[in-house]
């Protein structure tokens, strides 16, 4: 009986060691992921957001031309129009230079007038 117990003890110990190792690895990976995500939140994201006020846009049918002209600007990944706010928001790739005259020209080509233009960084998920 004693011999039998002596044979099983190492196996239990090995199992405990194995479980402990896996737990330690998971903890380490989790910690690194947490640290990495925390670090990402503080760093510049991949996108930037440009908001432009639009004058003269007063119906849904008029928003389509504006959206298309803004989307034609090089570096613009997406355009969202907020009709009630009389504004459009451009999602622009980081490192791409989209200038205010470019935006004003695009709004003008849509037959509308450009208002205030503001810039901000995108959220962590890249959206505006």
């Amino acid at each position, binding site marked *: 009986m004693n011999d039998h117990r002596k044979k099983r003890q190492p196996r239990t110990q090995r199992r405990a060691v194995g479980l402990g190792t896996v737990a330690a690895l998971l903890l380490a990976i989790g910690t690194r992921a947490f640290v990495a995500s925390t670090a990402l939140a503080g760093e510049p994201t991949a996108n930037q957001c440009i908001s432009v006020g*639009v*004058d003269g846009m*007063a119906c*849904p*049918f*008029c928003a389509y*031309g504006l959206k298309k002209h803004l989307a034609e600007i090089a570096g613009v990944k997406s355009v969202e129009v907020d*009709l009630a706010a009389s504004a459009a928001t451009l999602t622009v790739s980081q490192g791409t230079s989209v200038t205010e005259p470019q935006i004003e020209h695009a709004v003008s080509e849509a*037959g509308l007038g450009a208002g205030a233009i503001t810039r901000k960084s995108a959220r962590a998920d890249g959206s505006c």
Partner: protein
Amino acid sequence: MIRRKWQPTALSAIVSFVCAFCWMLWCNEAVAGPITFNTALPIAQGQGIVRGQAVVTRATGDPTGADRSFTGVGAESVLAYGATRDLALFVLLPLFLHKSLDFDLPDGGRVSRGTNGFGDVVLLGRYTLLEFNWPGKTIRVAPFAGIKMPTGSDSRSDKFGTIPHSLRPGTGSWDPLLGTIFSWQTLGWEFDSDAGYRFNTRADGFEFGDVAFGDLSFQYRVWPWRLERGGVPAFVYAVFESNFIWQGKDRIRGMVDSNSGGFTWFIDPGLQLVTERYVLEAAVRLPAVQDLNGSALGGDFQVVAGFRWNFFLPYHL
């Protein structure tokens, strides 16, 4: 003999009404706004709009004893294109599926005369001369000018002989037109008005009377009642429009036809669904005042229903 008896009344009597009907087809534009006439709202550079509209017209109430009745079923196709931010070009093509006049003969029989086919193409240019823009609202003034070309058939005949000019799909004449539009739009409502004149010219000895017109439109957003922030929601507008049409008397080989022309005032309640990509709309035109010359046939009603679709050309000026 039959034609001689019929022509002085029916030919001349329906002219003013049929011409008004044709004019309504010709003058419609494609931009969101009024259902039955032009608007000064922007068409973006490179933007195209296709519009299709079905028009059903009925006119009875003959003051003569011939019990005349006019029935018109038409469809209009419009292609609009924003050549520049201020200049929009329009091609209008009316199609008359059915255009007929029924009337009693002196001997008791009843006759139906009519035609169908493509009408005269109208080319139109509209230039935004003045614009005042604010967030969520705009005021615009846009003169327009164009020409109606004689592309429709103007030489039809049936077993009674040559079809009267007013029933033919085309007029055979080159008719310039000009006018101006005023639009004031906010997110809650829109007001549009226009005024214009078409100079009808002579073709084959016949000349329709010139047409002067004025239109008013008020559209009120009934849904969504409160406009929330975010995105581009669809709007439903309750529409009330009014059209004033005056037409001069026709000339047949230089002689004035006293049974043609006159003044008509329509009122048009309607409904419009406007989204970012398309518009669905319908209105009923009801004559409020008809002061027509001689024994001209007055209109009963007109139903207008159609759609508009927005597209964008990747390569533009």
